[in-house]
Each structure stands twice: as C-alpha cells, then as structure tokens.
C-alpha cells in the first residue's frame, strides 16, 4: 500500500511568532519591543545629557583635536614620528606599539605554553615537576607585580651605558636596553632579497613534490639537503656577484647614550617577558587539558604502529586536542592583548599610555578618547577571535 506523503501544515506564522516572541508568542514580542525601546531611550538620554552638559561647561567636544600638534615625544615608534606630528600620528604610534607587544607576546606565550604542557605530561619526573612548579608559581602571582619585577630586576642588574656589557664590540647591553648594529641597505640588497625569495619558493615546491611522491608512490625523498643548499647557496652566489647586501652601522657610545644602531628598550623587553611567561602558564594548562582529553587508546594505537612518542603527539594527539584547546586559547590571546595596557606602569608607550594617557590629559577630551580606545581594543579582540575561529574551522574541516 502506497502511503501518500502528507503535506506538512504551513508553519510560517507560528514560526514567526516563536522567533519574535519566544514561547510567550505575540505578547512576548511586545515585551521585547518595549525592552529594546527602553534601552534605546537610555542610550539616547546618556548621549544627549553628556552633550548638553559638556556644552554648558564649555568643554570642547568632537574629534577636531586629532589634527592638532601633539608636542610631546615617544621613545619607541615603528613609523617615523616627531613631536611636531599630530595626535592622529600619536594614536597610530601607540596602536602599533600595542600590536607589536601583543603579537610577540602571543608568539612566545604559545611556544612556552606548549613546551611547559608537554614537560608536565612527560614521564620524566624532574621535568614534569619543574613544569608544574612553573605553572603554579607564575599563574598565582599578580601580573602587574610580575611586570614590575622584570622591569626593576632587569634594570637593577644591568650596568649604565658607559660600563655596558659588550659582545664583539657591536652588541651592547645596558640599562638603556640592547643596542644592536643596524643593517643599512647597499646596492647588493635587492638582488640578495630576490635570490632569497626564489630559493624559498623553490624549497617549498620541492617539499610539496616530495610529499606528493610519498603519498602516491611511497617513495621517500630526502629534501632538506637540497633545500638548505638552495637557501644558503643562491643568495651567497648573488652576493659574490653583486657585492654585500647590507652594511652594518655599529653603535658607538657618544655622550650619555649610544648613537647609531637599533635599540630594544628595556620597557619592551620587560613587558613582553612578563606577558609571555604569565600567559604561558595558563596556555600550558589549556594544552595539557586538551591533550588529556584525547582518549588514551589513540596514543597506544599510535605507539603500536611503531611511531615514536614525539610523532604520536604531533601527528595524532595534538591535531585532535586542538579542537578542545582552541577556544580557551583564543581567550588567552585576548587576555594578553588586553593585559598589555599595564604597560603604563613601566613607561612603555602603548596605546593606553600615549593616547588614553598623555593625549587625554593634554586635550581633556575624555569621552572621545576613551571611546576610541575602547573601540580599538574591541576591534583587535574581534579580529583575533575571527582569525582563531577561521583556524578552528579549517582544522575541523581537514579532520572531516
């Protein structure tokens, strides 16, 4: 007997009702509407009230100040900056400093975090206890305290520039930071970079070819000697033809400080160190939890295939653990970025210090500046989460 498929009843209206009003239906919808209206009214009142009162007190408002001359200096800038530039420029300088410390901090925090997690899971008793001790010590001390510790401890240990520790008379370490020779491009620079680029591309192609050969025919081709030869040899050859790619400007002590060369300021080192080690302790626990969440059988199966412990971790356990690790790892990345605002305590010129600090105080436009700063941190955080979500999505897809 053939069963006629029954036409489902039209659900459009009930669906709409549920979507708009929840289980309560239309009355719920009205309540939601009222709630949103109340929120909008409160927001409007706040803005209108603030505007009226700023006008009444004749406090300057608006964003016109961004074009004014800043008139103060900053000791670390990734784009050219001088005190005759505008507040907009100061904003960008501060933002780049924040991004620099965040990106480098995240990079090191991830590496240290993974290493500590693996150390803690290692069968080696001493290694696992040291890793455990590290986690417990670092994550239980306030971050500001750690930043100040690194800053003051490192500074106190270092000599003044006149007695700086020199390495080969070209690297100088003192309480003004690490001064290193600055590479300056020579005529041979462009061909050198070009050769290096070609060598790297060729090495990647070679590696992909060997992978394909491995999967298709099981042939094992040793790639690394060729790749190394390419990457070292090609630029070397070009250098012999076109001359040295760079000349190094060696720093010399002149007056109070070193002239010439590039300098890594101690504030940056202390902040990066503190942020990386602190966040690494949390990342280590997240990674450990992720690895332990993978069933023990996976590890045993890997071992029974004859893979070494490292290979089992790399090829079997960690890819599966990443699903568990990624969301809390994203949180830690966001925390690190936001924690970088503690920079102001040690005089590192990040966004909060130069923009929400000095600029705010000079212009007095608290609402605009705090608004912009909050917006920027929100944007940085959202972009970081988006990148991590995308990465998670790719991993999920590759594992099917």
């Amino acid at each position, binding site marked *: 007997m053939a069963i006629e498929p029954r036409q489902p009843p039209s659900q459009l209206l009930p669906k709409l009702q549920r979507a708009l009003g929840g289980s309560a239906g239309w009355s719920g919808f009205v309540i939601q509407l009222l709630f949103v209206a109340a929120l909008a009214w409160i927001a409007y009142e*706040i803005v209108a009230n603030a505007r009226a009162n700023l006008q009444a*007190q004749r406090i*300057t408002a608006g964003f016109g100040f961004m074009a004014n001359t800043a008139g*103060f200096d900053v*000791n670390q800038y990734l784009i050219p900056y001088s005190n005759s530039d505008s507040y907009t420029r100061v904003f960008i300088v501060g933002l780049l400093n924040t991004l620099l410390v965040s990106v480098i901090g995240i990079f090191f925090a991830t590496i240290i975090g993974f290493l500590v997690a693996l150390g803690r899971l290692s069968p080696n008793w001493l290694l696992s206890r040291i890793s455990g001790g590290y986690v417990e010590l670092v994550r239980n001390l306030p971050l500001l305290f750690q930043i100040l510790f690194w800053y003051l401890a490192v500074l106190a240990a270092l000599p003044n520039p006149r007695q700086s520790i020199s390495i080969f008379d070209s690297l100088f370490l003192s309480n003004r930071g690490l001064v290193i020779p600055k590479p300056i491009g020579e005529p041979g620079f462009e061909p050198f970079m070009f050769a290096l680029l070609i060598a790297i591309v060729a090495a990647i192609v070679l590696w992909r070819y060997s992978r394909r050969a491995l999967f298709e025919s099981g042939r094992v081709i040793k790639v690394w000697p060729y790749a190394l030869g390419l990457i070292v040899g090609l630029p070397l050859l070009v250098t012999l033809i076109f001359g040295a790619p760079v000349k190094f400007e060696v720093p010399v002590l002149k007056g109070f400080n070193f002239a010439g060369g590039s300098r890594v300021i101690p504030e940056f080192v202390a902040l990066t160190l503190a942020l990386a080690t602190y966040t690494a302790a949390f990342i280590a626990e997240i990674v450990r939890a992720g690895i332990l969440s993978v069933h023990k059988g996976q590890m045993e199966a890997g071992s029974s295939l004859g893979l070494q412990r490292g290979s089992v971790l790399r090829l079997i356990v960690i890819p599966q653990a990443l699903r568990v690790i990624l969301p809390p790892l994203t949180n830690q990345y966001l925390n690190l970025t936001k924690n970088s605002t503690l920079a102001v305590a*040690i005089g590192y010129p990040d966004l909060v210090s130069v923009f929400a600090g000095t600029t705010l105080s000079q212009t007095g436009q608290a609402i605009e500046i705090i608004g912009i700063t909050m917006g920027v941190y929100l944007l940085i955080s959202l972009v970081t989460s988006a990148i991590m979500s995308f990465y998670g999505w790719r991993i999920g897809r590759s594992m099917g």
Partner: protein
Amino acid sequence: MKRVSLVLTLAVATGLSVQAASAQTLKTVKDRGMVSCGVGQGLPGFSSPDDKGNWTGLDVDVCRAIAAAIFNDPTKVKFVPLSAKDRFTALQSGEIDVLSRNTTWTLSRDTSLGANFTGVTYYDGQGFMVKKALKVNSALELNSASVCVQQGTTTEQNLADYFKGNNMKYEVIAFGTNDEAVKAYESGRCDVFTTDVSGLYADRLKLASPADHVVLPEVISKEPLGPMVRHGDDQWLDIVKWTLYAMVTAEELGITQKNADEMAKSDKPEMKRVFGTDGNLGEQLGLTKDWVSRIVKAVGNYGESFDRNVGAGSKLGIARGLNALWNKGGIQYAPPIR
C-alpha cells in the same frame, strides 16, 4: 590606570547632569558636609600624607582653608589623590569640587578643559635633576640623554620644546605616576629626571641618598601653579579665588595664626573690613563675616603656610623667591579686600 579613567569617563557621561544642572557647588558642599579636594599622590611640601595619615602641604592648606571658610573646621575635607593624567577628568566629572594639585595655569587648560584657574599658589618653573657623578653643570650639556618624566603634564611638552629649540636629541620615558618616574630615574634607566623645580627638591628627599643628586640651574619654563574649579559656577570660583587672596592679604597685613584674635579687635578701617566687623564682604561671597579669621586661624597666612610646608621651616628649605609678597621682591599680590 585604565579603569580609573573609564570610571571617570562614565561619570562624566552620566553624572554631570547633577553637577551642571544645579551648578551650586557651595550648596552641594554644605549638604555633603565636606569639601572634596583633588590633591597629588604624595609630593612632600605640596600634598602628602604624614605617618598618621594626615594630609599636609601647601596645596593641602588651600583645601583646608576653603573648608575653614565654609565650615569653620579645616578637617572637613575629603582628599582625593590623583595622578597627573586623571586629575582633569576628576574635576570635569564632579568627583572633586576643587583641584589643588600643583597644576600649571595655561590657556588651553583655562578654556577647552571646561575649568578655570583661581589664582597662583606657587610660581614655579621646570628644571632638571641629574646624578652628581655625571658631572653635568648645565642643561645644555644633556644632548642624547634619557629623560624620565610623569605623563600628562606640561613638563612633557616643555621638554620637547627645550631640546628641539636647542638642537639636542633625547629619549623620553613617560610614566603614569610621579613615583614610578622617580623610581626609574633612581634605578638608572634615565640620566635625567625633570619636573617643576619645587617638585625636584621634594622628590630628591625621597631618594635613597639625596646628596648624590643635583638640580641644574636652568629653569626652562613658567609654571604658575594654582587651584582649579569647574566652569559654570562663578560663586564657587570666587570663594576659592578669595580664599587664596585672603591668605596673601593676611600676610601683607601681618595677621598670623597666633595673633588673629588680637588683630580682629583692631580699629583700623582696613582691618575691620577684613575681619568683617564692618560691612558684609564675607556674606557677599556666600560665606560668613569672619571668613578671613577662620582661614588664618586654621592654616595661617600665606607666608606661614609657605614656610611650614616648603620654605625655611620645612625639610625642603625653598627660598621665597618669586613667591615673596610684591612689596618684598616677589610677585605674590592680592587685590584689595573691599
């Protein structure tokens, strides 16, 4: 630091209505029973708490004098310690009634910040402090030096102007609070610490061995320091302004903390006006007739307060200089009380 600014900003956004709509600071203060006064975070001589937690200093005396004028009780002050970069937001938001925190009077602060200066408590100028061991005798020898400074001050801009004007290079490290800047200077991160000269003398006392540090002779800017109030309440502006002038006038007339009661009996017309035994000048301000004697009995005249806090009678030992009365070689001058 960020959280403080955030809270203050929210307060600006939402809380101003109360302040600006009524704009009756005197009434607000009386209802509260306290003057809320923004001061520094510990600058000896100007505003710092002693070992019992009592605030003392020249800036603090201004707050106490205002409280004495209103309540006849110099202890009715709530002190709010503020960093340089948070101070204006605190005033704008109404968290404090008056900012008495060695703040330099400039045009832009008088206008776009929405606040007014009420006078000058201390004529200062920016200077430099270095370690004696560096054997520097002049600020012009500071080319390529590293300089520690507190951020959010006129100091930062003067510094940039001075080095640029003299074609010298320098590295600036700006800290959120004065103490952090001083600590970094002491640890050797900087060759130079810069702030107003009075501040240099005060901060030098906090160093482990003050004798190893020297203040250079150059004064590179004009820094008239004084209290600030919000725009929009002229009565309150007058009260703060004339409280200062009362202290200066008292010194000029020789009225001191000790002899105030004695002098109040004087028959001189000028004395009668000042002490309110004749006329109602104090009431015109919204205060009482005996406002001047209340102020002087609480904190003394300007000269007494100066000596006790920063001058000869204090650890700082700063000479009166520009801060002497106009008829004694300085420029402290009060309009007549009449």
